[in-house]
């Protein structure tokens, strides 16, 4: 099973994501923003970081990278895609996921251990969890406040497409404490906090992030 990890100029967590993919049991394949094919990978991760410096808007420039054209195409056809933090922002800018991520309510970058609850375990990236399972993984971003219009929010909630919610006080002003969402098909997931930084208690707050990377393996062998 091959999982592609995309590197844009300014991507930071690609090495962490690669480490996590391997820890999850899959083979990691590096993808460069200029690539025009996906080297036959079975799934793709858009890691965190500051692609193109996050200038203009987070993910706004990365969204037009050559590799994204292919990912958008195949994502629409069902290729499993996980966007973490900056990757989530890229997915929204690409309109693969609804809504947008805006400045944290208090305007500060926030790095902390965050408790989230997993609310949808039907997606390609969350099947290893149990519904309502609470995990603690790092949250670290300056623009993590999920915003969208009421109709979109309505749809996300009624269709059960909110895959993860912040537990406790709202860390960044996201509507309905949304930490992650998925598309209708459940193959594309965007997540603000960082599971790839929580695969080993030695270097993270827990190993509870691993579930996202074992989930994709299950999804692929099925």
């Amino acid at each position: 099973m091959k999982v592609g990890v995309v590197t844009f100029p300014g991507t930071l967590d690609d090495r962490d994501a690669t480490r996590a993919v391997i820890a999850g049991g899959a083979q990691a394949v590096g993808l460069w923003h200029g690539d025009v094919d996906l080297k036959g990978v079975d799934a793709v991760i858009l890691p965190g970081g500051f692609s193109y410096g996050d200038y203009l808007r987070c993910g706004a420039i990365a969204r037009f990278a050559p590799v994204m054209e292919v990912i958008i195409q195949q994502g629409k056809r069902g290729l499993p895609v996980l966007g973490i933090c900056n990757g989530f922002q890229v997915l929204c800018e690409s309109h693969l996921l609804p809504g947008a991520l805006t400045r944290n309510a208090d305007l500060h970058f926030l790095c902390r251990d965050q408790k989230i609850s997993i609310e949808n375990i039907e997606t390609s990236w969350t099947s290893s969890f149990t519904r309502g399972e609470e995990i603690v993984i790092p949250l670290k971003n300056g623009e993590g406040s999920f915003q969208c219009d009421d109709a979109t929010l309505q749809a996300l909630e009624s269709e059960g497409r909110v895959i993860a919610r912040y537990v406790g006080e709202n860390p960044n002003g996201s509507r309905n404490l949304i930490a992650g969402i998925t598309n209708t098909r459940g193959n594309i997931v965007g997540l603000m906090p960082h599971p790839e930084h929580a695969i080993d208690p030695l270097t993270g707050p827990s190993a509870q992030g691993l579930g996202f990377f074992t989930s994709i393996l299950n999804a692929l062998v099925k």
Partner: protein
Amino acid sequence: MAKIVVDVMLKSEILDPQGSAVAAALPRLGFSFAKSVRQGKRFEIEVEGEVTPAQLAEAEKAAELLLSNPVIENFVVRVEK
């Protein structure tokens, strides 16, 4: 020399923490004139020579495609002397 200006503002229903922070800071500094503040972006685009209608049309497209995110933002494109 003429330039194309693109103003990008968050839609009114999207919350604007930066604008609110400014609005909150003003009274603390003794300013009482502001009822509400919204903060957006302003792009100044220089072109070769005078601005042509064709360039303006291109700018409109660029504003829609790249400079703004239609999900949360509105934009205005104009020529400024």
